[in-house]
């Protein structure tokens, strides 16, 4: 329990640090006046708006206070208004977030769907042609940047074969699997290599354990032994890595969304940065950081589910 609490604190600190850092970034290089001028320019608004903008940004208060006020309203769900579109930031995020989450989710599903069987098979037949071939190709898989892969996939599957769209619709629905496939695949390949090798290493170790020999001596089928006996204990490091990855993947979606023109958080962020739309940037950063916290916390819970020994340790602690 204590361990979990410490982790939570750590992650909340991350949240605060990230949002504060982004918030202050803009004001470090530009004086408040500059900021207002810039925003006015973007808005192409009348000088009277100046006062309104200043009021909005609470520019008269010191930095920390301003941040505090932003944080306060953020916690109630009000992330301010976008300067370029005048929409509430929270609304925009609400529309776009599901798509980004879907992308990350599909990518992980694809990656695991390939990596788990491959890893198990490689461990079961360690040092076979299959295993060695897989090891060699995983070096290659890790060397392709996901954006290069995206371009390749677009070329072959979208342009040449026409099976999938190269650009997604602007009202992309989460269930539009066809549109999500190439983007998810681009993100997934590098992960496949990492996951597969992790699982393989752990499985090889697990398969040496006595209880696997015992399961064999019970006369159980290979499939049963591999999937029901060996997989669970071997999946611990895999699960942790998925957690770390999923959190980091939120950033990777930025590029992929841009390449495929997907209307998600990533494109919104890039857009907002170019347009100096501070509050949007803030909102997105906050959501991403919050996502981190939640995902990491869930991973900890999943750990306990997978390994009942940890449950006892936790409750004893």
């Amino acid at each position: 329990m204590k361990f979990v609490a410490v982790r939570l604190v750590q992650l909340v600190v991350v949240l605060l640090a990230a949002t504060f850092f982004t918030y202050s970034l803009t004001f470090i290089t530009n004086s408040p006046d500059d900021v207002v001028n810039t925003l006015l320019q973007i808005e192409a608004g009348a000088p009277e708006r100046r006062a309104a903008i200043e009021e909005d940004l609470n520019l008269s208060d010191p930095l920390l206070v301003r941040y505090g006020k932003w944080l306060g309203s953020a916690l109630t769900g009000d992330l301010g208004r976008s300067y370029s579109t005048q929409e509430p930031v929270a609304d925009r995020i609400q529309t776009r977030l599901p798509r980004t989450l879907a992308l990350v989710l599909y990518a992980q599903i694809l990656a695991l769907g390939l990596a788990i069987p491959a890893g198990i098979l490689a461990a079961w037949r360690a040092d076979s042609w299959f295993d060695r071939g897989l090891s060699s190709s995983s070096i290659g898989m890790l060397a392709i940047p996901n954006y290069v892969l995206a371009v390749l996939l677009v070329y072959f599957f979208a342009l040449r074969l026409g099976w999938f769209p190269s650009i997604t619709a602007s009202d992309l629905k989460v269930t539009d699997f066809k549109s999500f496939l190439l983007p998810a695949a681009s993100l997934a390949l590098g992960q496949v290599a990492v996951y597969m090798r992790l699982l393989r290493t752990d499985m090889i170790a697990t398969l040496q354990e006595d209880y696997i020999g015992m399961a064999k001596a019970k006369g159980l089928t290979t499939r049963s032994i591999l999937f029901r006996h060996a997989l669970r204990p071997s999946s611990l490091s895999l699960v942790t890595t998925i957690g770390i990855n999923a959190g980091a993947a939120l950033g990777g979606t930025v590029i992929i969304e841009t390449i495929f023109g997907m209307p998600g958080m990533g494109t919104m962020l890039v857009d907002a940065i170019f347009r100096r739309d501070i509050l949007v940037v803030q909102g997105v950063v906050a959501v991403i950081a919050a996502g981190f916290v939640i995902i990491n916390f869930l991973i900890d819970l999943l750990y306990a589910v997978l390994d009942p020994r940890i449950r006892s340790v936790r409750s004893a602690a």
Partner: protein
Amino acid sequence: MSDLLPEHREDRTVGLAETGGASPAADAPETTDDGRSKKRRLGVGFWLSAVWLVIVAALTMLAPYLGFVDKPGTFSIANPTAAGPSGAHWFGTNKNGDDLFSQVVYGGRVSLFIAFAVVILGFISGGLVGMIAGFFRGRIDRVISAIIDVLLAFPALVLALAMIAVFASDGSTVRPNMPVVIGALSILSVAPLARITRGITLAFSEREFVTAARTLGATNGRILRKEILPNVIPPMAVFSLTVIAVVIVAEGALAFLGLSVSAPASTWGKLINVGRPELENAPHITFFPAGVMFLTILALNYIGDVLQSKFTVREGAL
């Protein structure tokens, strides 16, 4: 860049989701059939990679002096269309008729320059921080480590975007230039590099020659300089190969977002991106720079990994 860099081999290998990978974690099978340790022989892959890297390095460094490489900005007026590979143009030409091969070479100059700059800056700053944390330990270490952990936890690309956008804007447009790009990437590399250096320093601080030096009355500064530093540098130098690969990828990612160095400078990432509109008709414009980038990353990763496993063995023997 936490998630871009692989953690020290002893730790879990962190995923690469963000800017598209380049973490090696490659683990060629450790023993051959007859039980001999493969680690002792460098193998075909190693030398192939080395040859490739030498070629790339030579071409990019000597580019201005090489006759067959067109300087940037030379237009081939005779043929302003994209054409595939031919005898005259090994990689073909781009939309403007420029020789693609030359473009890739010059692009490499910039990409590699950025990568080296980031690595050097990152190591100086991150390395220093890491060494201090690992050597002095105690409260200093706890504070530094806590900060590093927080920094590592956040998606690097987003921070990079934010930084570049902020520091490279004049008025309402964002025009990144070389120093800004290098700066942003360097800042992001500090945390992971500090973490690695700290680990290595920790391992070495325990060793007897440090204690010996101390009993001879050496000051901390002297120990750091004369005992620790010379031992930290080799593994870090090996590790820097991996870092270079990561930075090349990261810069490419920025280029795709339009946030890398501005024209007329070109990088591999930019070249790949520029070729995208023509992908259907003239795929070679994208494929060649992509291929060169891929092979370079592959070579760097492979060599880095092979060398790294040799170093880890020695440490493990401690």
